[in-house]
């Protein structure tokens, strides 16, 4: 149903309003583009319409979800309160927000140093970061697991089955992935600004906190968002590190529902999926402009 209204909106542009184009030329030059658009929109949106319908279907089974919007109830959403779902949502938000904030703070500070100071090892450091970012952290999940066993013996909060431990692991990837993105942007802020502030008696930390950070806020938003989104959906490390069900993130938890008893848990999963897609979807739609800018600057969704 949503598809229909959406596509209707797409086609409802009256063809006659295009000036100077006869009907046939309109079809060959513009009309087919609408046809392509409608078909791809259906392709892109039908799974999402389906999941919404499944979430609202009272049966809660995979078979029962096949008749779209045949009946609507909030039973699946109500049932979520009997599960760990909201705990997982809280865990995921905690981990993703902490990681995003930490990534922005540490990445921006490093980018500032590389962009503004000239020191021995600067070029080598930048090259090293370029090489390090080629090794995705998830490839080393075995070593991360073993490291956290060791750390957990000493400080349990940094070990396995701890959200703080997981955040620390994610922060380990912060510098490698984001410093370059930020470094380029920091370089576009004219140095004369720093120098003027320095002459007025500002210290390096005042310049950083009060001048530079304000001027680079668009890139901070991009990095924060991308980090939030990729942490939100990260699976393999979270799966390896978080062991007890109450500590799981959404990706680990919802996978558990679908992998065991797919048929029975389907309604629950669909409701959970709708709710957990909302934070990311909202960020995407409201901040489309920033994200598209960040994408073309070279990051890939994780």
């Amino acid at each position, binding site marked *: 149903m949503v598809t229909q209204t959406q596509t209707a909106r797409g086609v409802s542009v009256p063809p006659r309003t295009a000036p100077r184009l006869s009907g046939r030329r309109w079809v060959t030059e513009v009309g087919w583009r609408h046809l392509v658009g409608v078909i791809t929109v259906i392709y892109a949106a039908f799974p999402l319409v389906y999941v919404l319908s499944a979430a609202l279907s009272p049966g809660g089974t995979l078979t029962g979800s*096949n008749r779209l919007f045949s009946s609507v109830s909030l039973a699946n959403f109500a049932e979520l309160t009997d599960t760990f779902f909201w705990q997982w949502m809280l865990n995921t938000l905690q981990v993703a927000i902490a990681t995003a904030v930490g990534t922005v703070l540490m990445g921006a500070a490093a980018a500032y140093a590389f962009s503004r100071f000239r020191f021995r090892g600067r070029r080598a450091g930048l090259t090293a970061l370029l090489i390090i970012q*080629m090794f995705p952290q998830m490839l080393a999940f075995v070593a991360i697991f073993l490291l956290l066993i060791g750390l957990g013996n000493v400080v349990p909060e940094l070990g396995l089955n701890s959200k703080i431990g997981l955040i620390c692991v994610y922060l380990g990837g912060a510098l490698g992935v984001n410093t370059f993105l930020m470094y380029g942007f920091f370089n576009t802020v004219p140095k004369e600004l720093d120098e003027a502030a320095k002459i007025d008696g500002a210290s390096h930390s005042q310049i950083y906190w009060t001048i530079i950070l304000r001027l680079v806020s668009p890139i901070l938003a991009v990095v924060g968002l991308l980090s939030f989104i990729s942490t939100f959906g990260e699976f393999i490390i979270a799966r390896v590190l978080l062991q007890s069900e109450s500590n799981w993130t959404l990706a680990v938890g919802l996978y558990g529902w679908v992998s065991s008893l797919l048929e029975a848990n389907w309604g629950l999963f669909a409701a959970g999926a709708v709710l957990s897609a909302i934070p990311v979807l909202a960020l995407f739609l409201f901040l489309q402009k920033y994200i598209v800018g960040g994408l073309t600057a070279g990051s890939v969704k994780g």
Partner: protein
Amino acid sequence: MSLPQATRTSSATGWGPGFLAKLVLIALVDAFGVFAALAAWNEGSYGILAATLALLAVANWVYFSKQALPLKYILPGLVFLLVYQIYVVAYTGYVAFTNYGDGHNSTKEDAIEALLVQNERRVEGSPSSPLTVVADGDALGFAIVDEDGDVLAGTADRPLEQVDGATVESGRATGVPGFDVLDRVQVLERQQEVTALRVPVSDDPEDGSVRTQDARTGYVFLSSLEYDEAADTLTDTTTGTVYRPDGEGRFAADDGTTLAVGWRVNVGADNFVTAFADDRYAGPFLRILLWTFVFAIVSVASTFLLGLFLAITFNDARVRGRKIYRTLLILPYAIPGFLAALLWSGLLNRSFGFVNQVLLGGAAIPWLTDPWLSKLSVLGVNLWLGFPYMFLICTGALQSLSSDVLEAAKIDGAGRWRTWRSITLPLLLISTAPLLISSFAFNFNNFTLIYMLTGGGPRFADASVPLGHTDILISMVYSISGIDGSAPKNYGLASALSIVIFVVVATISAVAFRRTRSLEEIS
């Protein structure tokens, strides 16, 4: 008015708020560091102890010295990078050359101790003593009365020790200071725990342990193995067989039988040889390697072509509602990837899924369980997931093409097709190539999609290891590591495969980036 000296002073060296904030933060870091160092000392984790102390020293030097200005900004990120990225990568490299995994989990000392404990049995005619089941908090323990009438008590983690002031009635301990004596009902409730409990006689595993079957009499169990430190051999005292270290982290007898528990040793390049040459792994490995390339290349190509086609389609100012189209087309990209993969696994379900039941009118097509169809499904779902991204970047690239070049081509008499082929496409490729490379690297390791959609299945019919037709290298690493408990653990081989993936991705990225750079220079 600012004096020259004033410009030199940082706000964080006078007693200003900045300095105080720094002081508080450093104090917190130091407190945590000292706590961690002490804990590491107590645990005997000297590696962690040394690393903690070194990091603490560096942190304090950096933030209180005037010479380390850039480091003040880099250090926080650098610490995390060093511990959770660089160390971890190096450790992966180390594990790749060991036989770390099930049966080879720890050091040789631990292995010997475990072997001695595992092979304990009641020695004929060994002394029996009256026994009382006690508890120290949650941990169960035994209290026995020895021949001299002294009471000894201990738990699984605390060897037997003499307890003063215990009360003994009719030869049996009835009150033990520091322990709670369990009554009959409590013992019955925890019967299984009681019969499985082993309380070591002393710190030396060769002294054996006390166990019980009836919760009333304790027997001393001694190991049937005997460790000879000088000769570095284990001898089975019942059969007389001598076991020697075989150089591969196990004790082996002359006839080739080995003892169950081994230890971690360096095995050189054995893991790499196993991946490429061992019958059990080489076949699946080569097929998975090939499929990983096919999957990554086809994914990038298909999403790019569809995205490019859509970008061209909508890159026409005469099309109304382009913003609405764009917002709707971005949707698959805007929902988290794991949700999409799980959602499609339901949609494509053979017996109940929407695609078979509704779109195809009740067909039972094995979308996710047939070797070829499952590959097609994986690629199809990845197309759905990935085309919006390519659509976005192609749109951006098309709009940033300078119109001068296109006009110049028009003036030179180039037709539409010629302009497109010789001007637009090359320019477009130059600006999108780095993104295509990172997209390739991302898909090469797209664990979430594979694991959630098909779980790597369907299984290879002819392989003894749990691998399947849609497994890519990273999901193969995950299966082989055995980290989720579904297969025997083999950290060594898994790490070796990680290294292989890294080499492949790094080589391709390096070559491709160099190529695109030379492209840029030409243009």
